[in-house]
């Protein structure tokens, strides 16, 4: 038997997942806030293996310097042969990618830093 979890796209939004309040928690986790440089941190919402492309040989979902739209897939985290797509919560420019392809990541690990861009449609990209 294989155990699988089905996650809704909303649950996969890393910023959202990290910002669910923990009532009564004595030791509040810091909320993901833009760093001093104004970049948004995208952190792993689960344990898994980080993949930059949908399959071996395919082009990466994103490259540094690329502008991404809200909801665009940034990477895949694989846990128990289940592929979980990690998406950008808001539009931005990928300023850094912190994990190498096929490397394991833990919950909360920094994956990407995005430089926020305005909410205008990104049809110029």
């Amino acid at each position, binding site marked *: *038997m294989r*155990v699988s*979890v089905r996650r809704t796209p909303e649950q996969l939004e890393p910023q959202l997942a990290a910002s669910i309040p923990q009532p009564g*928690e004595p030791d509040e*986790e810091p909320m993901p806030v833009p760093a001093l440089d104004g970049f948004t941190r995208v952190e792993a919402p689960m344990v898994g293996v980080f993949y930059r492309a949908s399959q071996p040989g395919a082009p990466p979902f994103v490259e540094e310097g690329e502008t991404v739209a809200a909801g665009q897939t940034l990477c895949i985290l694989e846990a128990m042969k289940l592929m979980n797509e990690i998406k950008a919560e808001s539009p931005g420019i990928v300023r850094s990618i912190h994990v190498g392809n096929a490397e394991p990541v833990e*919950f909360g690990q920094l994956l990407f830093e995005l430089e926020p861009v305005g909410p205008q449609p990104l049809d110029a990209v």
Partner: protein
Amino acid sequence: MFKRVLVANRGEVAVRVIRALHENDVEAVAVYSTVDRDSLHVRLADRAICIGPPQASESYLRIPSLVAAATTTGCEAVHPGWGFLAENPAFVEACADNDLVFVGPSADVMARMGDKVQAKLEMKAADVPLVPGTEGTTDLDEAREAANEVGYPVLLKATAGGGGKGMRLVRAPDELDAAYGTASLEAEAAFGDGSLYLEKAISPARHVEIQVLADGQGGVLTLGERECSIQRRHQKLIEESPSPALDEETREAMEAAAERACHAIGYRNAGTFEFLLGPDRSFYFIELNTRLQVEHPVSEMVTGLDLVREQLHVAAGEPLARTGRASRRGHALEIRINAEDPANDFAPSPGRVSRLRPPLGPGVRLDSYVEDGSQVPPHYDSLLGKLIVWDESRPEAIARALRALGELRVEGVPTTRELAIDVLRSEEFSSGRYSTGFLEEAGARLPALARS
């Protein structure tokens, strides 16, 4: 033996398992939720993986995260501890699907023993005594006949039910008709099904359990009993071995029954057969816990065996070095220290332990994850740790436990320490004549309970 094992748990049991791994030269990989980042098990392990936020459903209970933590760190096996996923057959299967050895029984045996009806069927087939009664739904005439056969008092219970609804204690034949009527009506109202069955009421009952180890290759070792009748709201507070209620003949009958059942069901690894013990020393199977138990150190102290080490050897495919009855010596007591508030009806009271002074000296063991400054998070159970003492005789062990509890200081959160002292000093405990109803009956006679 394995090279690297994932410890799929937190707190005290994670520390316990890491200790056994290190003594056997096995690397330990810990997992933790964000609120446990600074917990002792994280720092004792060779490596630690953050698996999620504080809620257990998103961290310690998330099977994919635990399996991924094990596979990405190169673990060969997973020790589940107790609680969380320790008795979840889906987790056992997920481990197998990912080429991880689960330190415990097979998923199949675990699932069968987790189903109370199925477990009782298999125990009956193995000639393990069950509480006498009707095999299923019974009408009033059949109930009267069955009650005469098993003897009063009897319990009427709702077939569809649980939680005391539709349940009646019947002390004598002239109470049966009325009790049957009201219990059936209550069951109908609560579950939409008024059918009842009947069981002999075991009263006063003691909770006595048998620890076993089985290697899955035909070898079974029984490690004697643990007496667990000091309970508060079905939570064990103090355990001891040997039980003051057992004679040699009954003990051997219970161990033989557990041994027989292990062979019959194909059991492997550590397990505990829970029994009710009646005042006439008759005993009845309740359930089989297919995992390591909180009170396992009591058996370790009297047998000199390390149960976690044995679990690892069995999981690695090795046969047990000894089978039959483990030899024992002396008397062991375990006192659970919970972060609970006596002034607030023993509600769990999480917080920060500002200072811990552990008791030391001869014959004392403290299994705990708490240090000065430790956080006791509100998300998990309130067990801070267990004080275990060993001595040559029962009176000496009680005196040693009282001495150790006197040394123990926990500052920052209220604990059950004072209640344990009251129990150990009570006439009932020192005489050994107590049952599962003791704490309820003793009530205000115990200073710690009178204050609550």
